[in-house]
């Protein structure tokens, strides 16, 4: 493999020092004169019609400039999902509506001089509700006679709204029933995952203002600036050219900022009043009114031959999209499309999903995007097959997982809301990942031999995963590179760094391609006026798609530089030219010229022109990264408390362009996943109100909660990615639930079918097993070393 100068190296994250010294980089770090403050009124009912709303008193409250309701705002149906056009999510949302569909649905907004005044005025709005029966359990949504949540005539793109079905998916390969008939063992398991939230430490925040030409500027904490521009234009019925969206630094997203939630409201207020407007979610609003992870019930049935080869896999997903269908179809698709191809040895595969509306908080995009829920079920079912066949879980996975050069019919059958694209795997280190992870956790000493000390029992578990790198033939990014006198370059691109370090990776790609230092690349990103288009940061697309665009731009600029050098050297072709240390060198003649000299030459001396190029990237490929996760846990049999002791993630993300940043993505996702597996969950009252919308009651991991975490980055070369890279951002959130679930089984022979694995639930399972087991002796499985 070629030796790189900056690829695969830990250059400092370029915004890190500015962030660590508190520079004003976030949306809310500016304050504009005459800025209006926006507060919202939310529905206190899960399902109701607003019969009347009286805003007179609120409007007369001192400082109030504007009160917004369905009566005085554009009534244009759209989706809040920040996806590419045409969005695969149904159009089922209005800016404000006469019908409210969950506790936390937006009823009105007030814009006032101060936050306090806006909050007071909110209390003065009088709403007369006609309360409707509600659907508060996803299993009730499709029942005959269930209340219809979306009965609006204008709804578009939902599968069968009369039956609360936002989306429905059915795909198959082979003959599933025959597949099961011809299997020697069959395992069927159902797992349910909970409502959970992204919890970026910076909540949603938007500031809007008019520029000196009367255009609306939206400064917002978003993962999708270009989609914000398009969807705000749509929702307000104004031309795209009237809007400029700027994404400064953003304080974490994890999917929740792939939504248009505050932008259209602030933009509308600014449009109507001419004044700047600011809306900032409180932590409570973030929980009740932004977005969540789709709770799912996943049923997995696997048929396998005696030798462990899978013969049939059937997955059924019931997904709860909440009150609106944003990301409903695609998240459910991913529960299958990002999991089933992993076991491509099964010729018979079937995947069905029902995505239902309920009168509960709105689900959306969340790191892992359905794959997390799919793996929670699939990877535990795979362990069950292994136990049934008395095989080592490692061996059964090695027998069945996808390999380089192979494909799966699911790739084509199941795309993002439409048919997918056939993929042949070109890089896959799963066998090494399994071996290295197993060694690190001590699998062969520990598996099947739970260690007991008093009431505490230790066990190990594992799981394997794949994800994607962007959405093939859909996600497009573009980048522009322009040369300056000192041989530095401006990179402007639409890629959206939400804290991941994408801007740093982009600079490394430019530096490597042009033979300069990363510090010589000035990166400016995500400004719809100044940078080229990019779909934004989601679907693990950053390095692969946006990075690919940067590489294409850099390659074009490289050609332009060579053309000038050729002229300056008086040579006839460029094939012996190299770019190194800020110089073009002709290996044929030994002549050299610095990039600075080239820049001066082209800008001032002869045949003057700007060396610059725009590169776009869209790919028929979405190369999956792979991971093998291992965990050792300690379970307290008396209390049911699970303590993760050590977590190992072996990951193949192609060439890690910046290993330290890659490691940060891996560990961050694992810890987020540990919270999801063990403690994080929405709790509701009987009327659908969330009772724990704050960090005092919704428990995300702190520094004292983390186990020892070992990351193993196993480099491969992915020919379709920039400098061999694949994605890494999402995949590692998928491991904690199945790996811990499997470790729990390994330790105590219990399996929980509902997450999170709270002490109460674990203890209940322990007690149930005690009753069942009286007198029974289970046969241990010996791990098989290969």
């Amino acid at each position, binding site marked *: 493999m070629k030796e790189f100068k900056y690829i695969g190296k*830990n250059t*400092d*994250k370029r*915004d*890190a*020092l*500015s*962030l*660590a*010294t*508190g*520079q*004003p*980089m*976030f949306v*809310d*770090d*500016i304050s504009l004169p005459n800025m209006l403050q926006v507060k919202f009124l939310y529905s206190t009912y899960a399902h109701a019609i607003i019969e009347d709303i009286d805003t007179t008193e609120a409007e007369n409250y001192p400082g109030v400039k504007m009160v917004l309701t369905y009566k005085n705002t554009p009534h244009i149906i759209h989706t809040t999902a920040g996806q590419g056009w045409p969005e695969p999510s149904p159009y089922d949302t209005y800016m404000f509506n006469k019908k409210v569909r969950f506790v936390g649905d937006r009823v009105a907004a007030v814009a006032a001089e101060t936050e306090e005044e806006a909050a007071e005025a909110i209390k003065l709005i009088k709403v007369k509700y006609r309360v409707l029966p509600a659907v508060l359990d996803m299993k009730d949504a499709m029942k005959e006679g269930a209340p219809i949540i979306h009965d609006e005539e204008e709804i578009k793109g939902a599968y069968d709204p009369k039956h609360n079905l936002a989306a429905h998916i059915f795909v198959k390969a082979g003959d599933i029933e025959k597949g099961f008939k011809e299997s020697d063992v069959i395992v069927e398991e159902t797992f349910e995952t909970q409502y959970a939230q*992204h*919890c*970026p*430490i*910076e*909540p949603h925040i938007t500031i809007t203002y008019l520029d000196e030409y009367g255009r609306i500027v939206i400064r917002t904490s978003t993962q999708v600036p270009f989609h914000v521009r398009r969807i705000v234009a749509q929702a307000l019925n104004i031309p795209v050219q009237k809007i400029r969206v700027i994404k400064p*630094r*953003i*304080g*974490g997203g*994890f999917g929740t900022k792939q939504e248009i939630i505050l932008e259209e409201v602030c933009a509308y207020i600014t449009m109507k009043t001419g004044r700047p407007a600011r809306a*900032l979610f*409180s*932590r409570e609003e973030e929980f009740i009114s932004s977005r969540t992870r789709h709770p799912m019930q996943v049923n997995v049935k696997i048929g396998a031959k005696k030798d462990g080869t899978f013969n049939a896999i059937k997955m059924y997903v019931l997904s709860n999209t909440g009150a609106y269908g944003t990301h409903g179809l695609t998240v459910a698709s991913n529960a299958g499309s990002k999991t089933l191809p992993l076991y491509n040895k099964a010729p018979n595969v079937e995947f069905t999903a029902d995505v239902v509306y309920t009168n509960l908080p709105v689900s959306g995009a969340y790191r892992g995007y359905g794959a997390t829920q799919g793996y929670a079920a699939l990877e535990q079912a795979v362990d069950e097959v292994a136990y049934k066949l008395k095989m080592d879980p490692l061996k059964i996975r090695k027998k069945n997982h996808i390999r380089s050069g192979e494909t799966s019919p699911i790739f084509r059958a199941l795309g993002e809301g439409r048919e997918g694209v056939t993929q042949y795997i070109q890089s896959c280190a799963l066998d090494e990942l399994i071996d290295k992870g197993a060694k690190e956790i001590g699998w062969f000493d520990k598996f099947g031999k739970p260690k007991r000390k008093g009431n505490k029992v230790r066990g190990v578990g594992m799981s394997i995963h794949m994800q994607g790198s962007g959405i093939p033939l859909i996600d497009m990014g573009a980048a522009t590179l322009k040369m300056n006198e000192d041989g530095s370059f401006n990179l402007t691109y639409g890629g959206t760094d*939400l*804290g*991941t*370090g994408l801007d740093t990776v982009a600079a490394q790609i430019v530096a490597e391609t042009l033979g300069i230092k990363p510090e010589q690349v000035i990166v400016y990103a995500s400004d719809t006026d100044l940078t080229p288009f990019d779909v934004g940061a989601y679907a693990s697309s950053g390095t692969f798609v946006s990075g690919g665009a940067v590489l294409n731009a850099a390659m074009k600029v490289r050609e332009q530089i060579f053309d000038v050098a050729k002229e300056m050297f008086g040579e006839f072709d460029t094939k012996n030219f190299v770019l190194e240390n800020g110089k073009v060198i002709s290996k044929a003649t030994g002549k050299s010229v610095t990039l600075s000299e080239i820049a001066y030459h082209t800008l001032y001396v002869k045949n003057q022109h700007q060396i610059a190029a725009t590169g776009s990237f869209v790919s028929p490929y979405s190369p999956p990264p792979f991971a093998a996760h291992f965990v050792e846990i300690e379970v307290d049999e008396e209390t049911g408390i699970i303590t993760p002791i050590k977590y190992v993630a072996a990951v193949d993300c192609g060439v890690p362009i910046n290993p*330290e*940043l890659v*490691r*940060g993505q891996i*560990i*961050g*996702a*694992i*810890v*987020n996943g540990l919270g999801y597996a063990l403690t994080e969950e929405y709790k509701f009252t009987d009327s659908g109100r969330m009772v724990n919308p*704050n*960090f*005092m009651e919704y428990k*995300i*991991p*702190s*520094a*004292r909660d*983390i186990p020892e*975490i070992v990351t193993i980055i196993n480099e491969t070369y992915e020919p379709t990615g920039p400098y061999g890279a694949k994605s890494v951002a999402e995949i590692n959130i998928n491991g904690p639930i199945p790996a811990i679930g499997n470790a729990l089984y390994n330790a105590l022979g219990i399996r929980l079918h509902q997450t999170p694995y709270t002490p109460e639930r674990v203890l209940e399972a322990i007690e149930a097993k005690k009753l069942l087991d009286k007198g029974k002796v289970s046969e241990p499985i010996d791990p098989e070393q290969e």
Partner: protein
Amino acid sequence: MKVHYTINGEKKIFEIKPGEVLLDVLRRNGYSEVKGNCYMGTCGACTVLIDGVPHTSCTILAAKVDNKSITTIKGVGTLQHPHPLQKAFVEKGAVQCGFCTPGAILSAYALLKENPNPTDEEIKKALDGNVCRCTGYVQQVEAVKFSIKLLKEEK
């Protein structure tokens, strides 16, 4: 009412409302480096040092700290002259979105003043109120340890 603070070494007088919390007073007066808005002391993004002790400024009444000295992240080090902790956070990949970073560094700063050679467990304990959703903390702990080395070199 008026309060007198010494912020990052500079004497300041602010007009405040009696019921206000320090976070709001600081942000209103341009200290945008102080983040956070949970107002329950549960995220730690609003951490400042008050007479050297880290506190969540969203739960500290502004009136209570009259005549006290307050340190924000800008009092620890600047872009031009960063503190070893800031350098270490950068080098060890401990900064992702950066929203929690000032708070975490301030907590670490207070720890090292008190305990120049903390164990991993002591570092985790000192940072346990500064919630980070991006990094998973591992690189933050590594950064604090690395900063000890940098601090020694600087001496």
